[in-house]
Structures are given as structure tokens and as C-alpha cells.
């Protein structure tokens, strides 16, 4: 066991790091209620008057809608492809299963700008115009690994004897999947899906290259911050996005627990 001094020292360090992690988040939340339209500290008072114009801003609504649609489609694709890959890798030992993990983790391990440029040049190559679907494809590439990791981690923890018992009791392959395997991985699917949704909803870099002239919500925010326009409304939208991304992640965390970045499993 560590000495008392060490433990206290480490405890203080942890408190400092937590402050470092959360002060910016608290700040951004406070600025959303900033009474003044000047973005300086300390803010003179609190108000909710920026919420209405931000929520009724047509550009924001359009961008929000696009972001939600993309995130939903990308999550759907990620759930399908990610769980297939997880089942395949889990059920069968074969040469190259390592290679599959490597392949799926690439889009998230390589810098986003490379994924973005690669996809954009590839679409141009095929003569595909940038559209809603090109954004979805871009997002799906880096969302698959999140579902894959969650489902695979769960499959590794569910004892194989359960499936065997089901088969011994006369269930066919489909029934075993429907009544045994699926229920045991369902929360992993949900948490993987929630994380994929949050990841897609917030993505900027790949989207910049695959969206063309379309604005997702993060791209709208990025543009406004750069130009320094409508900052009070930007604060509100950023605050709302923060709320929207934190809720699914907190939910995902509740559904499953353990360690790893790309999984809550």
C-alpha cells in the first residue's frame, strides 16, 4: 500500500486534473446565459434571452436536422457492419482476425483529415457528387469500430456454455440467436450505438471534406466562430450540443461498465 503522503498527493493531483477537465465545460455553459453580447469574463449577469433566437434560427434548425439524420444513418450502418464483424471475429478463429481489428480501427486512429481527403478524392474519382450520403459514408467509417468493440467485448464475456445449453435443449440457430445471444448483447448494441451517434453528431473534420456546401451543426458553429458572428447564439447552440452529446454517453455508461476508450463495455 502507498504511504499516506503519497495517497494525499495523488488525491490532490486528481482534484486538480478534474478541475482542468471541467472548468472549460462549466465556462461554456455559463456563457450560454451571458447577459451581454460581449464575450468577456466575468459575465455581467445571467439571461435566457439568447435561447429563443438560437432555437428559431433557420440555419441552426436546418443544420441540426441534417446532423441528426446523418448521425442516425451512420449509427444504423455502424450497428449492422460492426456487429457482423464482431460476430465473425468472435465465433471463428482464423488467420487475420487481428488484421480485421486493425482495419476497423484505422479510420479513428488515422488523422481525420486523411480520412476526409481520401474519401473526398475517392468520390471525385467515381464522379459522385458530395451529398447527404457522402457525409453518412464518411461518418460510418469511424463509427463502425465503436459498435464492433462494444459487441466484441460483450461476446467475449458471455459464456459459450449458454449457447451450447440452448442448442442442447433443441433450439435451432435462429432461436438461439433470438432468445439467448441477442438478449445478452442488446445493451452492448445500445451503448455502442449511442456512442456512435454522439461521435457522428459532433464530427467536424471528415465532414468538412465530405459535406460540400451542406452545413451540419458542428460545421455551422465552426463557421460562426471563425467569422466571429452571432456569438451569443453560438454559445447557446454549443451548450445544447454539449447536453445532447453528454446524455447518450452517460446513458451508454449506465448500460454497461468497464474500461476502454472506444467502448463503455
Amino acid at each position, binding site marked *: 500500500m502507498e504511504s499516506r503522503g503519497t495517497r494525499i498527493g495523488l488525491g490532490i*493531483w486528481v482534484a486538480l486534473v478534474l478541475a482542468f*477537465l471541467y472548468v472549460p465545460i462549466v465556462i461554456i455553459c455559463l456563457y450560454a446565459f451571458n447577459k451581454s453580447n460581449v464575450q*468577456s469574463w466575468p459575465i455581467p449577469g445571467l439571461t435566457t434571452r439568447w435561447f429563443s433566437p438560437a432555437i428559431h434560427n433557420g440555419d441552426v434548425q436546418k443544420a441540426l436536422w441534417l446532423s441528426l439524420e446523418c448521425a442516425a444513418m451512420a449509427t444504423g450502418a455502424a450497428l449492422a457492419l460492426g456487429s457482423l464483424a464482431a460476430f465473425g471475429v468472435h465465433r471463428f478463429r482464423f488467420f487475420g482476425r487481428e488484421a480485421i481489428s*486493425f482495419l476497423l480501427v484505422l479510420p479513428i*486512429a488515422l*488523422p481525420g483529415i*486523411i480520412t476526409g481527403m481520401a474519401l473526398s478524392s475517392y468520390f471525385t474519382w467515381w464522379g459522385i457528387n458530395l451529398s447527404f450520403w457522402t457525409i453518412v459514408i464518411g461518418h460510418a467509417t469511424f463509427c463502425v469500430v465503436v459498435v464492433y468493440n462494444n459487441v466484441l467485448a460483450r461476446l467475449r464475456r458471455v459464456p459459450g456454455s449458454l449457447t451450447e445449453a440452448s442448442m442442447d435443449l433443441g433450439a435451432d440457430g435462429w432461436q438461439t440467436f433470438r432468445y439467448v445471444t441477442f438478449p445478452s448483447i442488446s445493451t452492448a448494441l445500445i451503448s455502442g450505438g449511442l456512442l456512435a451517434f454522439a461521435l457522428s453528431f459532433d464530427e467536424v473534420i471528415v465532414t468538412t471534406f465530405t459535406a460540400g456546401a451542406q452545413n451540419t451543426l458542428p460545421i455551422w458553429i465552426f463557421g460562426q466562430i471563425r467569422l466571429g458572428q452571432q456569438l451569443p447564439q*453560438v454559445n447557446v447552440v454549443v451548450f445544447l450540443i454539449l447536453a445532447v452529446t*453528454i446524455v447518450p454517453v452517460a446513458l451508454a455508461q449506465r448500460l454497461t461498465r468497464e474500461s*476502454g476508450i472506444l467502448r463503455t463495455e
Partner: protein
Amino acid sequence: MKALALLAPPTGAFIAVYIAALVALFVSAFWLVNPFTGIVHTWSLDNFRELWHGGTYHTVALRTIGIAAAVTVTDAVIAFPFAYFMARVAGRKTRAALFVLVLLPLWASYLARVYAWRLILNSDGLLNWTLHKLGLPSAGLAYTNTAVWIVFSYIWLPFMVLPVYAALERIPHSYIEASRDLGAKNARTLRSVILPLALPGVVAGSIFTFSLTLGDYITPLLVGGASSQFIGNVVYDSVLGGGNLPFGAAYAVVPLVIMGIYLVIARRLGAFEAL
């Protein structure tokens, strides 16, 4: 056969879209752009030649790699004691709470967090206000490379904490006891037992801190200054601003190659198990 049926759609899709796209990117780095007719499909090393001889591109690449390395080291130094506390000091409940507290900012909007730092570091932001209250002179950090370094370290910190924690947690307590029984002091145990076993976790974390910094252009654009250009900014400008995809692709080969080598080494060190 069944494995093939399960694996064919995901791997097929990945190879057909993602890997093919990476190849397309790599190939287009050898093409040129004619201002009148667009991309010219003739093999040429001109893009690479221009990069090799252009002093600015060296500076930008070195700055990018330097800051990415600094961010990785900073995060490792901040994360290690934190993860150590989580794994070896905290009780079960505290540990679970800390885990969630670290994870949440990671998933909270990236842009929101960068923007928050812009507000904090501004000359009339929280930082200078606090310094002023403490009777210290203001820090002119806004729009500097230091700001870029701080913000990157902040943004990617959770990516470092979690794998280091996972690695530390997996060290059997008996190893530490054995080390003590053999007469090692705390510092020696830390250096000879704990640190080597935590290394795969640190490397796993560094894949993210390093790679994500290497390819970013948003943080340098939002909190950096005129001399904070990253490889990503040059690529972004040449592709989306100048319409010169081949040149951008050629420059992007730099981080691509660096990350390729890095990932191979990381795999050797067992970092993929720690993800």
C-alpha cells in the same frame, strides 16, 4: 464458410470504400493540377519536390510533429498519477465515478471545448481575470503556439488516462508484493515493475494524442495565431481553398507515413490490447 458470410460485408465495405480511398489519395499525390483543365493524371514527383524544397513546409511539419509530441508527453505526465490513483488508491465507487468523469468530456462536443478555451484564454477571459485577482501580470496566451499546446493537451487527455488506467489495473498485486519482498523500495518498484507494465497503456493512449494532434487543423485555426499553421491547415487550404488536391495529398503523406510506422510499433508493444 459462415465466418466468411459474417465478415464479408464489413470487411468488403471497408476495403471497397476506405482502403480504396486511401489508395486513391496516395496515388493522387503523384498527380498535378493544371489551373485551366483541373487535375492532370500524369505521374510526377513535382508535389514532393516542392515540399522538399519549400522551407515553410519543413517548418510547418516540424511544428506539427513537435507539438504532437509535446502534447503526448504532457498528457502522459498528467494522466499517469491520475490513472494510478484510480487503479491503486481509489475504492470501487470512487473509481467508477472517476471513470465516468474522465469519459464524459471526451465525448462532449470537441468544438465546444476548443471554443471554451478560446473564451478562457482571450485577453479579457477567465485566465487573465484570475491572474489579475491574484495580483499577477496578464498572460498573453491567446492565439499562440502555447495555447495550441494547452488546448490539445486538454482535449486528448481522457484518451491517455483510460488506457493507462486499464493497464495499471491489470497488474496483479502479487507482482508488487514480490518486488517488495525482494527488497525493492517504492521508487524501484515503480520504475522496474509498474512503469514497464503500464507502457502498453501509455502507447495506446499516445496513438490518439499523437495522431489526433497530427491531423488536426481546427484547434490551430481557432486558438492558434499566424505562426501556428499545422500540416492540417496547409492541406485544408490547398484542397478546399486552392483546389489543389494532389498537393494536399502529397503533404498528407507525411502524417500518414508517420502514423503508419507509429501504429506498427504500437502493435508490437501490445498497445492494441489496451485500447
